[in-house]
Protein backbone atom coordinates (compact mmCIF):
# COMPACT_ATOMS: atom_id res chain seq x y z
CA UNK A 1 0.00 0.00 0.00
CA UNK A 2 2.82 2.40 0.83
CA UNK A 3 6.04 2.93 -1.07
CA UNK A 4 8.82 4.58 0.84
CA UNK A 5 12.17 5.57 -0.52
CA UNK A 6 13.62 5.61 3.01
CA UNK A 7 14.75 2.11 3.93
CA UNK A 8 17.06 0.25 6.28
CA UNK A 9 20.32 -1.44 5.38
CA UNK A 10 19.92 -4.11 8.04
CA UNK A 11 23.55 -5.25 7.98
CA UNK A 12 24.76 -1.79 8.93
CA UNK A 13 22.18 -1.17 11.67
CA UNK A 14 23.61 -1.43 15.20
CA UNK A 15 20.22 -1.09 16.84
CA UNK A 16 21.07 2.22 18.50
CA UNK A 17 18.25 4.70 18.87
CA UNK A 18 19.56 7.82 17.15
CA UNK A 19 17.01 7.54 14.35
CA UNK A 20 14.20 6.54 16.73
CA UNK A 21 14.68 9.72 18.73
CA UNK A 22 15.05 12.02 15.74
CA UNK A 23 11.95 10.88 13.86
CA UNK A 24 9.31 13.66 13.71
CA UNK A 25 6.40 11.22 13.40
CA UNK A 26 7.72 8.61 15.86
CA UNK A 27 7.78 6.13 13.01
CA UNK A 28 10.82 4.07 14.03
CA UNK A 29 11.21 1.39 16.70
CA UNK A 30 14.15 -0.87 17.44
CA UNK A 31 13.02 -4.49 17.54
CA UNK A 32 15.33 -7.46 17.93
CA UNK A 33 18.33 -5.19 17.60
CA UNK A 34 17.32 -3.55 14.31
CA UNK A 35 15.46 -0.36 13.47
CA UNK A 36 12.02 -0.94 11.96
CA UNK A 37 10.08 1.73 10.09
CA UNK A 38 6.33 1.89 10.67
CA UNK A 39 5.26 2.45 7.06
CA UNK A 40 1.97 4.18 7.79
CA UNK A 41 3.78 6.86 9.78
CA UNK A 42 6.89 7.44 7.68
CA UNK A 43 6.82 10.73 5.74
CA UNK A 44 10.14 10.15 3.92
CA UNK A 45 11.74 13.25 5.41
CA UNK A 46 15.12 11.55 5.69
CA UNK A 47 15.92 12.83 9.19
CA UNK A 48 17.02 9.27 10.00
CA UNK A 49 19.38 9.23 7.02
CA UNK A 50 20.91 12.44 8.37
CA UNK A 51 21.39 11.25 11.95
CA UNK A 52 22.41 7.61 11.51
CA UNK A 53 26.10 7.36 12.46
CA UNK A 54 26.43 3.99 10.68
CA UNK A 55 24.80 5.05 7.41
CA UNK A 56 22.28 2.26 7.83
CA UNK A 57 19.37 4.42 6.67
CA UNK A 58 19.30 4.71 2.94
CA UNK A 59 17.18 6.12 0.16
CA UNK A 60 16.06 3.70 -2.51
CA UNK A 61 16.34 5.31 -5.95
CA UNK A 62 16.35 3.88 -9.46
CA UNK A 63 19.20 2.12 -11.29
CA UNK A 64 20.80 4.07 -14.14
CA UNK A 65 20.02 1.20 -16.48
CA UNK A 66 16.42 2.44 -16.47
CA UNK A 67 17.44 4.95 -19.15
CA UNK A 68 18.04 2.08 -21.57
CA UNK A 69 14.31 1.51 -21.87
CA UNK A 70 13.56 4.77 -23.71
CA UNK A 71 15.00 6.21 -26.91
CA UNK A 72 15.24 9.81 -25.72
CA UNK A 73 16.07 10.63 -22.10
CA UNK A 74 15.61 14.00 -20.46
CA UNK A 75 16.98 14.77 -17.02
CA UNK A 76 15.11 17.20 -14.78
CA UNK A 77 17.51 19.29 -12.72
CA UNK A 78 16.37 20.87 -9.45
CA UNK A 79 17.78 24.32 -8.61
CA UNK A 80 19.48 23.02 -5.44
CA UNK A 81 21.71 20.93 -7.71
CA UNK A 82 23.39 24.09 -9.04
CA UNK A 83 24.94 24.77 -5.64
CA UNK A 84 26.70 21.40 -5.40
CA UNK A 85 29.82 22.14 -7.42
CA UNK A 86 32.75 24.13 -6.14
CA UNK A 87 33.93 26.87 -8.45
CA UNK A 88 31.00 26.53 -10.85
CA UNK A 89 28.81 29.59 -11.21
CA UNK A 90 27.51 29.00 -14.72
CA UNK A 91 24.34 26.89 -14.92
CA UNK A 92 25.25 25.97 -18.50
CA UNK A 93 28.34 24.12 -17.31
CA UNK A 94 26.29 21.86 -15.03
CA UNK A 95 23.59 21.24 -17.64
CA UNK A 96 26.21 20.48 -20.31
CA UNK A 97 27.89 18.00 -17.95
CA UNK A 98 24.57 16.15 -17.54
CA UNK A 99 24.38 15.75 -21.32
CA UNK A 100 27.98 14.58 -21.39
CA UNK A 101 27.26 11.73 -18.97
CA UNK A 102 24.58 10.35 -21.25
CA UNK A 103 21.30 12.23 -21.08
CA UNK A 104 19.90 13.42 -24.40
CA UNK A 105 18.48 16.62 -22.99
CA UNK A 106 18.01 18.61 -19.81
CA UNK A 107 15.07 20.54 -18.37
CA UNK A 108 15.34 22.92 -15.46
CA UNK A 109 12.91 22.40 -12.59
CA UNK A 110 13.52 26.10 -11.85
CA UNK A 111 11.44 26.77 -14.94
CA UNK A 112 8.63 24.65 -13.56
CA UNK A 113 8.96 26.71 -10.38
CA UNK A 114 8.49 29.90 -12.37
CA UNK A 115 5.25 28.51 -13.80
CA UNK A 116 4.05 27.65 -10.28
CA UNK A 117 4.94 31.18 -9.12
CA UNK A 118 2.88 32.63 -11.97
CA UNK A 119 -0.04 30.27 -11.31
CA UNK A 120 0.01 30.99 -7.55
CA UNK A 121 -0.01 34.74 -8.22
CA UNK A 122 -2.97 34.37 -10.59
CA UNK A 123 -4.92 32.25 -8.09
CA UNK A 124 -4.18 34.77 -5.37
CA UNK A 125 -5.37 37.69 -7.47
CA UNK A 126 -8.56 35.81 -8.34
CA UNK A 127 -9.13 35.09 -4.65
CA UNK A 128 -8.97 31.35 -5.27
CA UNK A 129 -6.30 30.50 -2.71
CA UNK A 130 -7.13 29.09 0.71
CA UNK A 131 -6.27 31.34 3.66
CA UNK A 132 -3.57 31.07 4.72
CA UNK A 133 -2.29 29.09 1.76
CA UNK A 134 0.38 26.45 2.39
CA UNK A 135 2.81 25.63 -0.41
CA UNK A 136 2.49 22.14 -1.88
CA UNK A 137 6.07 22.04 -3.19
CA UNK A 138 7.65 19.96 -0.43
CA UNK A 139 6.31 16.39 -0.56
CA UNK A 140 7.33 15.76 3.06
CA UNK A 141 5.09 18.60 4.19
CA UNK A 142 2.14 17.21 2.23
CA UNK A 143 2.59 13.85 3.94
CA UNK A 144 3.22 15.45 7.32
CA UNK A 145 0.00 17.44 7.05
CA UNK A 146 -1.99 14.39 6.00
CA UNK A 147 -0.78 12.30 8.97
CA UNK A 148 -0.37 14.85 11.76
CA UNK A 149 -2.54 17.80 10.71
CA UNK A 150 -5.34 16.34 8.56
CA UNK A 151 -7.52 19.36 9.27
CA UNK A 152 -5.07 21.59 7.43
CA UNK A 153 -5.26 19.67 4.16
CA UNK A 154 -7.63 22.28 2.73
CA UNK A 155 -5.02 24.99 3.29
CA UNK A 156 -2.58 23.38 0.87
CA UNK A 157 -2.45 25.03 -2.57
CA UNK A 158 -3.74 22.36 -4.95
CA UNK A 159 -1.06 22.88 -7.59
CA UNK A 160 1.30 20.07 -8.60
CA UNK A 161 5.01 20.47 -7.86
CA UNK A 162 7.57 22.36 -9.97
CA UNK A 163 9.17 18.98 -10.71
CA UNK A 164 5.91 17.61 -12.10
CA UNK A 165 5.07 20.63 -14.20
CA UNK A 166 8.64 20.62 -15.50
CA UNK A 167 8.23 16.94 -16.41
CA UNK A 168 5.06 17.69 -18.36
CA UNK A 169 6.74 20.53 -20.25
CA UNK A 170 9.87 18.45 -20.90
CA UNK A 171 7.75 15.63 -22.33
CA UNK A 172 5.91 17.95 -24.69
CA UNK A 173 9.09 19.65 -25.87
CA UNK A 174 10.87 16.33 -26.38
CA UNK A 175 7.96 14.97 -28.43
CA UNK A 176 8.02 18.07 -30.63
CA UNK A 177 11.80 17.99 -31.05
CA UNK A 178 12.17 14.28 -31.77
CA UNK A 179 8.81 13.32 -33.21
CA UNK A 180 8.89 10.26 -30.95
CA UNK A 181 5.77 8.90 -29.26
CA UNK A 182 5.48 9.58 -25.52
CA UNK A 183 6.37 6.03 -24.52
CA UNK A 184 9.82 6.43 -26.09
CA UNK A 185 10.57 9.52 -24.06
CA UNK A 186 12.14 8.99 -20.66
CA UNK A 187 11.99 11.78 -18.09
CA UNK A 188 14.17 11.40 -15.00
CA UNK A 189 14.92 13.49 -11.96
CA UNK A 190 18.15 14.00 -10.06
CA UNK A 191 16.84 13.99 -6.53
CA UNK A 192 18.16 15.73 -3.42
CA UNK A 193 15.77 13.85 -1.12
CA UNK A 194 13.97 10.53 -0.64
CA UNK A 195 10.56 12.23 -0.55
CA UNK A 196 10.79 13.32 -4.18
CA UNK A 197 11.62 9.73 -5.11
CA UNK A 198 8.54 8.58 -3.24
CA UNK A 199 6.36 11.21 -4.86
CA UNK A 200 7.57 10.10 -8.30
CA UNK A 201 6.60 6.49 -7.57
CA UNK A 202 3.26 7.29 -5.99
CA UNK A 203 2.41 10.41 -8.10
CA UNK A 204 0.14 11.52 -5.28
CA UNK A 205 -1.76 14.27 -7.10
CA UNK A 206 -1.80 12.87 -10.63
CA UNK A 207 -3.76 10.07 -12.25
CA UNK A 208 -0.75 8.78 -14.19
CA UNK A 209 3.00 9.07 -13.68
CA UNK A 210 4.85 11.77 -15.64
CA UNK A 211 8.37 10.88 -14.49
CA UNK A 212 10.05 7.55 -15.25
CA UNK A 213 12.44 7.49 -12.32
CA UNK A 214 15.02 9.26 -10.19
CA UNK A 215 18.72 9.09 -9.41
CA UNK A 216 20.17 10.57 -6.26
CA UNK A 217 22.51 13.56 -6.34
CA UNK A 218 25.26 11.70 -4.48
CA UNK A 219 25.08 8.88 -7.02
CA UNK A 220 25.67 11.17 -10.01
CA UNK A 221 27.99 13.59 -8.24
CA UNK A 222 31.44 12.12 -9.00
CA UNK A 223 30.60 11.43 -12.62
CA UNK A 224 29.35 14.97 -13.16
CA UNK A 225 32.33 16.52 -11.44
CA UNK A 226 34.60 14.63 -13.75
CA UNK A 227 32.54 15.69 -16.77
CA UNK A 228 32.63 19.36 -15.69
CA UNK A 229 36.44 19.31 -15.75
CA UNK A 230 36.44 18.29 -19.40
CA UNK A 231 34.11 21.05 -20.64
CA UNK A 232 35.81 23.73 -22.75
CA UNK A 233 32.79 25.58 -24.03
CA UNK A 234 29.45 24.85 -22.38
CA UNK A 235 26.30 24.59 -24.49
CA UNK A 236 23.70 27.28 -24.02
CA UNK A 237 21.05 25.28 -22.18
CA UNK A 238 20.02 27.47 -19.23
CA UNK A 239 16.62 29.10 -19.62
CA UNK A 240 15.38 29.69 -16.07
CA UNK A 241 15.77 33.02 -14.30
CA UNK A 242 17.31 33.57 -10.92
CA UNK A 243 13.78 33.70 -9.44
CA UNK A 244 13.15 30.09 -10.34
CA UNK A 245 16.61 29.08 -9.18
CA UNK A 246 16.03 30.67 -5.77
CA UNK A 247 13.36 28.02 -5.05
CA UNK A 248 16.26 25.73 -4.19
CA UNK A 249 16.74 27.48 -0.87
CA UNK A 250 14.19 28.31 1.79
CA UNK A 251 12.34 31.56 1.29
CA UNK A 252 12.84 31.42 -2.47
CA UNK A 253 9.25 30.47 -3.17
CA UNK A 254 7.85 33.15 -0.85
CA UNK A 255 9.88 35.80 -2.68
CA UNK A 256 7.64 35.34 -5.72
CA UNK A 257 4.33 35.54 -3.85
CA UNK A 258 2.56 38.87 -4.45
CA UNK A 259 1.99 39.56 -0.75
CA UNK A 260 4.27 40.78 2.01
CA UNK A 261 2.42 38.62 4.52
CA UNK A 262 4.41 35.43 4.07
CA UNK A 263 6.00 32.95 6.46
CA UNK A 264 8.76 30.55 5.60
CA UNK A 265 10.04 27.86 7.91
CA UNK A 266 12.66 25.24 7.22
CA UNK A 267 13.53 22.08 9.07
CA UNK A 268 10.80 19.58 9.81
CA UNK A 269 10.52 20.44 13.51
CA UNK A 270 10.19 24.15 12.79
CA UNK A 271 7.52 23.40 10.24
CA UNK A 272 5.67 21.33 12.85
CA UNK A 273 5.66 24.36 15.17
CA UNK A 274 4.10 26.56 12.50
CA UNK A 275 1.47 23.92 11.69
CA UNK A 276 0.66 23.40 15.37
CA UNK A 277 0.03 27.10 15.77
CA UNK A 278 -2.02 27.28 12.60
CA UNK A 279 -4.08 24.34 13.82
CA UNK A 280 -5.15 26.09 17.03
CA UNK A 281 -5.57 29.61 15.74
CA UNK A 282 -5.28 31.72 12.66
CA UNK A 283 -1.84 32.95 11.67
CA UNK A 284 -1.42 36.42 10.27
CA UNK A 285 -0.17 35.38 6.84
CA UNK A 286 -1.41 34.91 3.31
CA UNK A 287 1.15 32.33 2.28
CA UNK A 288 3.24 29.78 4.15
CA UNK A 289 6.25 28.06 2.62
CA UNK A 290 7.45 25.03 4.56
CA UNK A 291 10.43 22.91 3.73
CA UNK A 292 11.37 19.78 5.57
CA UNK A 293 15.08 20.21 5.06
CA UNK A 294 17.17 22.82 6.87
CA UNK A 295 17.88 25.64 4.42
CA UNK A 296 15.32 24.32 1.93
CA UNK A 297 16.05 21.80 -0.84
CA UNK A 298 19.79 22.54 -0.68
CA UNK A 299 19.64 20.82 2.71
CA UNK A 300 18.31 17.60 1.14
CA UNK A 301 19.82 14.47 2.72
CA UNK A 302 20.99 13.14 -0.66
CA UNK A 303 22.94 16.27 -1.54
CA UNK A 304 26.71 16.32 -1.23
CA UNK A 305 27.62 19.93 -0.46
CA UNK A 306 27.12 21.61 2.90
CA UNK A 307 23.70 23.31 2.60
CA UNK A 308 24.92 26.74 3.68
CA UNK A 309 27.79 26.71 1.23
CA UNK A 310 25.49 25.46 -1.53
CA UNK A 311 22.88 28.15 -0.77
CA UNK A 312 25.48 30.91 -1.01
CA UNK A 313 26.73 29.48 -4.28
CA UNK A 314 23.21 29.36 -5.72
CA UNK A 315 22.72 32.96 -4.75
CA UNK A 316 25.67 33.87 -6.94
CA UNK A 317 24.80 31.77 -9.98
CA UNK A 318 25.26 33.82 -13.10
CA UNK A 319 22.34 33.74 -15.47
CA UNK A 320 22.82 35.82 -18.59
CA UNK A 321 19.83 38.04 -19.11
CA UNK A 322 19.51 37.14 -22.78
CA UNK A 323 19.40 33.43 -21.94
CA UNK A 324 16.27 33.69 -19.81
CA UNK A 325 13.39 32.29 -21.79
CA UNK A 326 10.16 34.12 -20.94
CA UNK A 327 7.30 31.92 -19.82
CA UNK A 328 4.81 30.96 -22.46
CA UNK A 329 1.07 30.81 -22.10
CA UNK A 330 0.00 28.29 -19.49
CA UNK A 331 -3.15 26.45 -18.66
CA UNK A 332 -3.77 26.52 -14.93
CA UNK A 333 -5.97 23.40 -15.13
CA UNK A 334 -2.97 21.49 -16.40
CA UNK A 335 -1.16 22.38 -13.17
CA UNK A 336 -3.94 21.51 -10.72
CA UNK A 337 -4.16 18.35 -8.63
CA UNK A 338 -6.07 15.59 -10.33
CA UNK A 339 -6.42 13.69 -7.04
CA UNK A 340 -6.98 15.08 -3.56
CA UNK A 341 -4.71 14.51 -0.58
CA UNK A 342 -6.30 11.95 1.71
CA UNK A 343 -6.14 12.38 5.48
CA UNK A 344 -4.46 9.53 7.35
CA UNK A 345 -5.55 9.29 10.96
CA UNK A 346 -2.58 7.31 12.26
CA UNK A 347 -2.35 9.20 15.53
CA UNK A 348 -5.85 8.15 16.56
CA UNK A 349 -6.02 5.34 19.10
CA UNK A 350 -9.28 4.05 17.70
CA UNK A 351 -12.08 5.12 15.37
CA UNK A 352 -14.56 4.56 18.18
CA UNK A 353 -14.41 7.32 20.78
CA UNK A 354 -15.28 5.10 23.76
CA UNK A 355 -12.68 2.51 22.78
CA UNK A 356 -10.11 5.29 22.26
CA UNK A 357 -10.92 6.64 25.74
CA UNK A 358 -10.38 3.23 27.28
CA UNK A 359 -7.04 2.93 25.55
CA UNK A 360 -6.02 6.41 26.64
CA UNK A 361 -6.82 5.59 30.26
CA UNK A 362 -4.74 2.45 30.00
CA UNK A 363 -1.84 4.43 28.50
CA UNK A 364 -1.99 6.92 31.38
CA UNK A 365 -1.98 4.07 33.88
CA UNK A 366 1.05 2.40 32.32
CA UNK A 367 2.86 5.70 31.87
CA UNK A 368 2.47 6.54 35.54
CA UNK A 369 4.68 3.59 36.48
CA UNK A 370 7.28 4.28 33.81
CA UNK A 371 10.71 5.64 34.76
CA UNK A 372 10.14 8.66 32.43
CA UNK A 373 13.80 8.81 31.50
CA UNK A 374 12.99 8.61 27.79
CA UNK A 375 16.21 6.64 27.39
CA UNK A 376 15.02 4.82 24.31
CA UNK A 377 16.62 1.53 25.35
CA UNK A 378 13.31 -0.31 24.86
CA UNK A 379 13.34 0.76 21.23
CA UNK A 380 10.60 3.41 21.51
CA UNK A 381 11.39 7.14 21.34
CA UNK A 382 9.99 8.00 24.80
CA UNK A 383 8.30 6.42 27.81
CA UNK A 384 5.01 7.89 26.65
CA UNK A 385 5.41 6.43 23.17
CA UNK A 386 6.26 3.10 24.82
CA UNK A 387 3.11 3.20 26.94
CA UNK A 388 1.14 3.86 23.78
CA UNK A 389 2.92 1.05 21.94
CA UNK A 390 2.02 -1.39 24.72
CA UNK A 391 -1.65 -0.48 24.49
CA UNK A 392 -1.60 -0.56 20.69
CA UNK A 393 -0.05 -4.03 20.95
CA UNK A 394 3.38 -3.12 19.58
CA UNK A 395 5.41 -3.65 22.73
CA UNK A 396 5.67 -5.17 26.19
CA UNK A 397 6.34 -3.65 29.59
CA UNK A 398 9.20 -6.12 30.06
CA UNK A 399 11.13 -4.27 27.33
CA UNK A 400 11.93 -1.52 29.84
CA UNK A 401 15.41 -2.15 31.22
CA UNK A 402 15.00 0.35 34.04
CA UNK A 403 11.96 -1.50 35.36
CA UNK A 404 13.76 -4.78 34.81
CA UNK A 405 16.64 -3.59 37.01
CA UNK A 406 14.20 -2.59 39.73
CA UNK A 407 12.59 -6.01 39.60
CA UNK A 408 15.96 -7.71 39.69
CA UNK A 409 17.00 -5.73 42.76
CA UNK A 410 13.73 -6.68 44.46
CA UNK A 411 14.27 -10.34 43.69
CA UNK A 412 17.82 -10.18 45.02
CA UNK A 413 16.57 -8.53 48.19
CA UNK A 414 13.93 -11.21 48.68
CA UNK A 415 16.47 -13.90 48.09
CA UNK A 416 18.87 -12.33 50.58
CA UNK A 417 16.07 -12.21 53.16
CA UNK A 418 15.22 -15.86 52.58
CA UNK A 419 18.87 -16.86 52.81
CA UNK A 420 19.18 -14.97 56.09
CA UNK A 421 16.11 -16.55 57.64
CA UNK A 422 16.88 -19.90 56.17
CA UNK A 423 14.28 -22.17 54.57
Amino acid at each position, binding site marked *: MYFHSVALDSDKCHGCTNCVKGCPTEAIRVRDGKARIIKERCIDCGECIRVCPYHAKISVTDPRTLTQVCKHNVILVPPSFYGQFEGVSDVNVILTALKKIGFDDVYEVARGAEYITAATARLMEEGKLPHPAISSACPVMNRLISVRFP*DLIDNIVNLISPMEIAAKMARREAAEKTGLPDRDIGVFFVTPCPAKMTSIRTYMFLTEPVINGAFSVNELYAEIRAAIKKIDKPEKLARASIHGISWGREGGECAGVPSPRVIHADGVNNAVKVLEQL*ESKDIDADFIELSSCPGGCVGGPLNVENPFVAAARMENMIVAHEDVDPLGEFDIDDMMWKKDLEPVYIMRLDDDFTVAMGKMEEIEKIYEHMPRLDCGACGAPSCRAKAEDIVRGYGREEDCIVKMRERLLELLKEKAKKDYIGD
Partner: protein
Amino acid sequence: MIKHYEISGTDFANGGEASSDFKTVLKKLGVPMDVIRKVSIAMYEAEINTIIHGHGGTCDAEIMPDRVVITFKDSGPGIKDIDLAMQEGYSTATDQIRELGFGAGMGLPNIKKYTDDMQIETSEGKGTTVILTIKL
Protein backbone atom coordinates in the same frame (compact mmCIF):
# COMPACT_ATOMS: atom_id res chain seq x y z
CA MET B 1 -10.78 10.11 32.41
CA ILE B 2 -9.00 13.01 34.12
CA LYS B 3 -5.71 14.63 33.19
CA HIS B 4 -4.11 16.55 36.04
CA TYR B 5 -1.74 19.46 35.52
CA GLU B 6 0.25 21.61 37.96
CA ILE B 7 0.55 25.22 36.84
CA SER B 8 3.56 27.16 38.08
CA GLY B 9 2.83 30.75 39.11
CA THR B 10 5.84 32.44 37.63
CA ASP B 11 6.49 30.42 34.55
CA PHE B 12 5.33 32.57 31.64
CA ALA B 13 7.67 30.86 29.21
CA ASN B 14 6.03 27.51 29.76
CA GLY B 15 2.51 28.90 29.92
CA GLY B 16 0.26 26.85 27.67
CA GLU B 17 1.89 23.50 28.37
CA ALA B 18 -1.27 22.01 29.84
CA SER B 19 -3.45 23.12 26.94
CA SER B 20 -0.93 21.89 24.42
CA ASP B 21 -0.63 18.48 26.09
CA PHE B 22 -4.40 18.15 26.37
CA LYS B 23 -4.76 19.02 22.69
CA THR B 24 -2.59 16.00 21.82
CA VAL B 25 -4.77 13.79 24.02
CA LEU B 26 -7.95 14.96 22.27
CA LYS B 27 -6.37 14.40 18.87
CA LYS B 28 -5.47 10.83 19.80
CA LEU B 29 -9.06 10.28 20.87
CA GLY B 30 -10.29 11.46 17.48
CA VAL B 31 -12.18 14.52 18.75
CA PRO B 32 -13.12 16.78 15.79
CA MET B 33 -10.63 19.60 15.21
CA ASP B 34 -13.17 22.44 15.55
CA VAL B 35 -13.93 21.24 19.08
CA ILE B 36 -10.23 20.83 19.86
CA ARG B 37 -9.61 24.37 18.66
CA LYS B 38 -12.23 25.75 21.07
CA VAL B 39 -10.84 23.72 23.96
CA SER B 40 -7.29 24.85 23.18
CA ILE B 41 -8.09 28.55 23.07
CA ALA B 42 -10.28 28.55 26.20
CA MET B 43 -7.85 26.38 28.11
CA TYR B 44 -4.84 28.48 27.13
CA GLU B 45 -6.54 31.68 28.31
CA ALA B 46 -7.51 30.08 31.61
CA GLU B 47 -4.01 28.72 32.06
CA ILE B 48 -2.46 32.16 31.54
CA ASN B 49 -5.01 33.63 33.99
CA THR B 50 -4.00 31.05 36.57
CA ILE B 51 -0.36 32.07 36.13
CA ILE B 52 -0.86 35.86 36.08
CA HIS B 53 -3.69 36.36 38.54
CA GLY B 54 -3.78 33.15 40.54
CA HIS B 55 -0.02 32.89 40.98
CA GLY B 56 -0.21 29.26 39.95
CA GLY B 57 -2.56 26.43 40.73
CA THR B 58 -3.93 23.21 39.29
CA CYS B 59 -5.87 22.15 36.25
CA ASP B 60 -7.99 19.02 35.99
CA ALA B 61 -9.31 18.19 32.57
CA GLU B 62 -11.98 15.53 32.50
CA ILE B 63 -13.12 13.84 29.32
CA MET B 64 -16.61 12.38 29.26
CA PRO B 65 -18.43 10.77 26.35
CA ASP B 66 -20.41 13.94 25.60
CA ARG B 67 -18.31 16.77 27.04
CA VAL B 68 -15.01 18.02 28.40
CA VAL B 69 -14.98 19.70 31.81
CA ILE B 70 -11.83 21.60 32.75
CA THR B 71 -11.37 22.93 36.28
CA PHE B 72 -8.73 25.55 37.08
CA LYS B 73 -8.09 26.15 40.76
CA ASP B 74 -5.80 28.71 42.38
CA SER B 75 -5.22 30.17 45.82
CA GLY B 76 -4.64 33.69 44.53
CA PRO B 77 -6.25 36.98 45.55
CA GLY B 78 -9.66 36.15 44.05
CA ILE B 79 -11.75 38.33 41.73
CA LYS B 80 -13.25 41.46 43.32
CA ASP B 81 -15.92 42.21 40.74
CA ILE B 82 -16.77 39.39 38.35
CA ASP B 83 -19.00 41.55 36.11
CA LEU B 84 -16.14 43.98 35.60
CA ALA B 85 -13.71 41.14 34.98
CA MET B 86 -16.03 39.80 32.26
CA GLN B 87 -15.86 43.09 30.34
CA GLU B 88 -13.66 43.05 27.27
CA GLY B 89 -10.54 45.12 27.81
CA TYR B 90 -10.80 45.25 31.59
CA SER B 91 -7.73 43.90 33.35
CA THR B 92 -6.08 44.13 36.74
CA ALA B 93 -2.74 42.93 35.37
CA THR B 94 0.30 44.90 36.51
CA ASP B 95 2.31 47.09 34.13
CA GLN B 96 5.10 44.57 34.31
CA ILE B 97 2.82 41.83 33.01
CA ARG B 98 1.36 44.13 30.33
CA GLU B 99 4.88 44.85 29.12
CA LEU B 100 5.21 41.12 28.47
CA GLY B 101 2.21 41.34 26.16
CA PHE B 102 -0.37 39.87 28.50
CA GLY B 103 -3.22 41.52 30.38
CA ALA B 104 -5.27 42.75 27.41
CA GLY B 105 -8.47 42.11 29.30
CA MET B 106 -9.65 39.42 26.87
CA GLY B 107 -9.04 36.34 29.05
CA LEU B 108 -12.43 35.70 30.61
CA PRO B 109 -14.45 37.05 27.64
CA ASN B 110 -12.55 34.68 25.32
CA ILE B 111 -13.07 31.73 27.64
CA LYS B 112 -16.80 32.45 27.67
CA LYS B 113 -16.87 32.80 23.89
CA TYR B 114 -15.21 29.43 23.24
CA THR B 115 -16.99 27.32 25.87
CA ASP B 116 -20.55 26.09 26.25
CA ASP B 117 -20.53 26.90 29.93
CA MET B 118 -18.28 28.75 32.34
CA GLN B 119 -18.64 28.84 36.12
CA ILE B 120 -16.56 31.04 38.39
CA GLU B 121 -16.32 30.54 42.12
CA THR B 122 -14.18 33.13 43.81
CA SER B 123 -13.57 34.53 47.23
CA GLU B 124 -11.35 37.49 47.99
CA GLY B 125 -8.02 36.54 49.47
CA LYS B 126 -8.73 32.83 49.15
CA GLY B 127 -8.66 32.02 45.48
CA THR B 128 -10.62 31.31 42.34
CA THR B 129 -12.02 28.22 40.66
CA VAL B 130 -13.03 28.42 37.01
CA ILE B 131 -14.91 25.51 35.46
CA LEU B 132 -15.16 25.30 31.69
CA THR B 133 -17.49 22.93 29.84
CA ILE B 134 -17.23 22.21 26.13
CA LYS B 135 -19.67 19.82 24.45
CA LEU B 136 -18.24 17.13 22.24
